[in-house]
Structures are given as C-alpha cells and as structure tokens.
C-alpha cells in the first residue's frame, strides 16, 4: 500500500490504518520532536518529546483528520510530517515558555556553545545595532548569518539548506559579515 492509500484510509477513520501510519512515520515524528526541542532549548526531556509526538499524531487525527487532509502531496509524507512536527514543537516551546513550565536553558543562555560569538557578544547597544543592520542587508546574507550564528548550524548544514557547495559557505559568511559591519558601523 502506498502513502496515498494509507492516508486515504486514515482519513476514512480506519483504526488499523492509523496504527500503520504510527508504525511507519512515528519515528520521524519522534526524531523531529527531539531534534527541534534539543536545537532550540539545548536539551529535550522525554516528557516534552512525548507531548509533541502525541500532539502531532493526535492533531492529525482530530477533527475528522482535518490536518491530515491538508497534505497536498507536494513532498513525501515523511518530509511533510517532519515539517509539521518541527512547527508543532516550536509552538509547543512558545506555549510552555509562556506558562513558565519549561525548565531548560534557552538558546540565548547557551550562546557560548555557538561556533562564533561575534554576533552574540558585545553590549546591548551593539546587539541592537546588529539586529537593525540585519534588516538592511540582503536576505540571502541575512539568512546565512542567522543559520550560522543564531541557529549554530555547521558549514555542511548551511550548505545543505542553501544548496551550495560546502566550500562556498565560508566566503559567503565573510561577505555577509562585511556587509553587516558596514551597515552597523562596527569598527
């Protein structure tokens, strides 16, 4: 049975189909949940991973599989469900942070672990200038700076995302930093 047939059966509310869907794609959901929580918060508690994992699967199932029906087939189902899980996890973090129930070190606090602290250090005024300057540089440069400095991704990961060779990342980063420095008037 292919993905489409499985999804159709799930939409029809067949319990067996849901079991198969959980068996086939549950690992992707679980992995994406753990990865997103760890990436944003620095660590991932089992309790939170399960909340996201179950929340995503129940979200697909609830309201007559309303969310599942939104899958348009523009990607593989596994990629789509990973994307949905990442979104759900980010929203979960926001909600739980508002409630004050997350007990993690936020990314800001673990910034010292990031590969380069050029964008994170300095006083408040300097950070403010940098953030304002980020809005003035070209989007592609802004994106590469955020991926590398804010999200702490490796050269390889940045290259994967931007679909460029790995050895192009460094020159692009240097150029982007130059551009930022110019706009932020950092000596």
């Amino acid at each position, binding site marked *: 049975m292919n993905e489409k047939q499985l999804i159709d059966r799930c939409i029809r*509310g067949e319990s067996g189909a849901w079991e198969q869907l*959980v068996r086939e794609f549950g690992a*992707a959901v679980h992995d*994406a949940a753990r990865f997103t929580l760890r990436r944003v918060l620095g660590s991932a508690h089992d309790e939170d991973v399960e909340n996201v994992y179950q929340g995503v699967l129940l979200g697909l199932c609830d309201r007559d599989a309303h969310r599942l029906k939104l899958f348009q087939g523009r990607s593989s189902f596994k*990629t789509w469900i990973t*994307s949905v899980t990442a979104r759900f996890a980010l929203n979960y973090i926001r909600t739980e942070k508002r*409630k*004050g*129930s997350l007990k993690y070190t936020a990314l800001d606090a673990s910034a010292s672990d990031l590969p380069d602290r050029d964008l994170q250090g300095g006083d408040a005024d300097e950070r403010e200038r940098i953030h304002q300057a980020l809005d003035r540089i070209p989007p592609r440069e*802004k994106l590469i700076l955020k991926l590398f400095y804010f999200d702490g991704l490796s050269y390889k990961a940045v290259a994967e995302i931007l679909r460029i060779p790995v050895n192009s990342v460094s020159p692009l980063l240097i150029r982007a930093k130059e551009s930022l420095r110019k706009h932020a008037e950092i000596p």
Partner: protein
Amino acid sequence: MNCPGSEQAAAYADNRLDAAESARFLEHCADCDDCRRTLAVLLQPRDQAAVPAPMETRAMAAIRRSLDRAPRPFRRAVLPRPQASPAGLLVAAALLVGFVGLVLLAKPQSSRVEEPRPVATKTPVPGAVAVPGTRPAPLPDTPKTETLPRPEPLEQLRPAPVKTGELEEPGDPKVEIPAEILVREPAKPEETRPEEAPKPVTHTVAARVLSEIQVTDISGNLSVNRKGLRTKERLTGVARLAEGDVLTADKPASFQVDGRHPVVLSENASISMAYAAQEQAPWLKVHAGEATVESTAASRWVVTDGQVAVAVKPAKARFTASRREARLAVAAQTETLYLQPDGGRLQAIHVGEEFHVGRGAAEVRPVDAATASRRSAAFEASRPRQRTIFYTSCDPADAKREHFFVQEGNWLRNDGLLSRERADHSAAAAIAPNPRFSWRDSLTLKFRYMTNCRSVEAQLRVDDKKYMLQRPLPVDRRNLGQWQSAEIPFALGSWPVFSRDDGGKQLVVSTEDKFDAIRFVVRQQDVFGDQRAYVLIDDIQVVEREKD
C-alpha cells in the same frame, strides 16, 4: 508576514520547488524564524532512533480514543434531531415560524424579556383561575409557545394567539400571532379593549434535558438511592448525581453544587439533583422536606416537585424550596427572587414571602417570622464548612479513565493519572490546577493512592519561583496494592523538604506563590520486589476550610 507553512518547507526540502519558488522561500526564511528552524530540522542528516514502545502504545491508545470519542461535551446534552421526514420538516418549519414571530413580538417590549421556553403541555384545567392575590411581576412575561417533545401535526404546533387578558400586563398592546404571516401591527392607543374574564392558568413541567451533576463537600448523614438500585449508599466527600437518584437526609445535611453554592437539607428531606442543560442551571426536585439553596454568585436554578417546575432567574440569593399542601413552595430569604413557573408568568418574590404554585393556581404568601428565623438558623448550623476549590477523580472501573476537575464552577477534563516512567527510573503522575491556586494555611490536599513502593512523594511545584515543596509519605508493606488516603495540610511543617532549581539552601514561601503542578512521584529503588515502580492517584482534592 504571510508564512507559507509546513507544506512549502517540506516541498523545498524534497527539492520540489522551482528556482523562483525556492528563492522566494529562502528570502522568506531570512525573516521567519519558524520556517528557518523547520528547514534546519528537515535538512540536518541524523540517525533516526526507534520510538520507545510505551510511548508508541500510549499514542495509539490516544488515537483510538480520539477516533472513538463521541462529539458530546460533558453537560452539553443535545436534543434529539428531528427525523428528515416530511412531517418532521413541517414541524421544524412551524417551529421556526413561531420562533421568529415570538422574537418580533418580544422586541418592542422591555429589554429584560426572558428567552422563550418550550412548554410540554398546556391544557386548561376546568375551574382553575389565577389567584387574585398574585402580585404582578415587574418583568414582562415569557412569550408562550406550544412546542412538544414529539412531532405533532402542523396545526397543533402553530403558536397559539395570546388572548387579551391572558397573562398580560394591563395596558399592554394587544397582539396576535398569525399562523403564517409575521407582520407585527403597532397598538392603537385609542382602541378600546373589551373587558374579559381572566383566563385560567396551567402550570406544568416543561420537558428538559437533564444530565449528571457533581456535588462536593458533603457533610451530615446523606444517603442516596441510585436509580434502578434497591440499596442505599452513604455519601461522603464528592458525588455525582443523576435525575433518578434520590438523596435522603435523616438529619440536617449539606453539600455544595458547582463547587460554590451550598445546599442544606432539613431533617427527613428527600431530593433529587441534576443539571438542566437548556437553562444551564442546577435542577432540584423536592420529594419531601425542605432544601435551602444559597447562590453565592448570580445563578439560575430550576426547582420542581414533579407536578410543577419553577425557574429561578439568575440571583445571588438564598431561597428555600419545599413541598406544602400538594404545592411547591419557594421562599426568598435574602434577596428578591424572580420566579417563573413553567407555563406561567414571572413573579417577584420579596424577602419574607413564599411563592406557592400548583397545577392550576399560584399565590404569594407571607412567611411568618418564626419560620424565617428557624430556616435561617438551620442553614447556618448545617451549611458546609469547607469548599472544594479543586477536584479530580477517575473511576478505576471505567476503562476510559475519564477525569473531571471541579474548580470555581467549571469542569475541565484531565489526562490520565497513572504514573509515567521517567528517564531517572522514577514514575510520576501530575496534574496542573487551572486556574492555579495560591498558598493558604486554610487549604488541605487530599488524595487516594495505590503503589508498589515504600514511599510516595507528593510535590507542589511553583514555576514562577522555580521551587518545589515535597512531602514523602511512607507506605507500609501490608498496604501494597491497596488504596490509601492521605491528607496534607498546607502548613509549612507538613512539607518538610524543598528543592530550588538553582540549588539554593533557603526558601521563602509567599502567600502569592501559585502552584503550577501537583505531582506524585515514586522511585524505582523504593519498589518492593522487582516490579516497575508505579503509583495510581485518584480523588485529588484541595479543600479550603472555613476560618473560625
């Protein structure tokens, strides 16, 4: 920002976007943190670990529950839908026409017009007349409709014309409800109305959808005869009651409805309680004796003796309902009450008055001072001295494991309370009170627990100040696998251990600290034998005792 969402990110990751779409999406990612982070999750190569089996099992169980769940929220009972037969459609059409007509007619009257209430039967009783002593109601009467629980021929369902003089304020415009054409004619002041004798009134009991109600803080000797059962059951603490259950009190007893409205039963009183979905009001049926109700917030009530039913309009007041001389009597004790018998007109009952209503008659009588004083004293003597501010329970016999909170009159559903294993080999069950409550010496935490460990630790967590109060409860080996009860007062001495997230050795607890979670933890090293640690928690209750 117009975020393209998960679909676009997934399509980009799978290389399904063309060059222009990809460029647009990356441009968007420069400004959208969620899309950028989603992309990072999608495109980071990593080894995919298997889902832990218990997690997968729990998720599947939740999905099965979701698939099986009927879309019927608690307390929101739905009236049966009319059949899609031609007769049914005609009935629906007639009802709609009648309703629209009533709305149009009600508009020019006072803004305090009550909503129309369906009446089950409205058969005039020969010889029954309105009692002359009945006081005129200060609010306009509810419009009359002739709706029936079962479909009837169209003609019988047409709204009956309101006849001059029938349940009408003097001077009100004469109106007639046409059967089909809904044109409201303004009253002509110069028009004279012929004198007519008052029409007989008929009070009755309108059909209502009744659902279960939960009562808390039961005190006194109260027993219940459940519908269909011959045995009596003694009630304590918290109970759920349905329409057919009959509560009896040999001596004065009391409980709270909706967590905040005390009800006191007199000696040898017998009542039934339920929840009227349509009025969103507690429903009280008096079989014998007296029941005194105090609405601590503006609340509706429906009171009945089985022959007639009276709707008590929203009031923050105390009243007594009783059966007197084959009539239902409702006495106002602290505030003026506005009462409306089913099929009758609205009545204002002032303090010191009692409204007596039977099938064909209604009257207001004064209450003698001695009776009023006796009732007031009896209420004060027997009313509940504590208030449940939080309660959750599950029925171990119910495989669905449904849990309900009662909190400030609201009911909320909760997750299961069977402990879950954690990474550090402990197991914990937790609930999050909503809304949170703050530290008060007058509070007590009560719960039942069953475990296979030497100790259960109750924890109170305050997220704002990142600390936790702990109270270990030793478990006797003989009580393994047995339900046990615990009561822990909210006094600092009762919570001997604390832990701060920052490892600090001192703690200042303030009365403004609000608790985010109540947790019950057992640890693997405390297990008797070689089983997995577990704890089952039930009947978690936080009660507030009244200060002396």
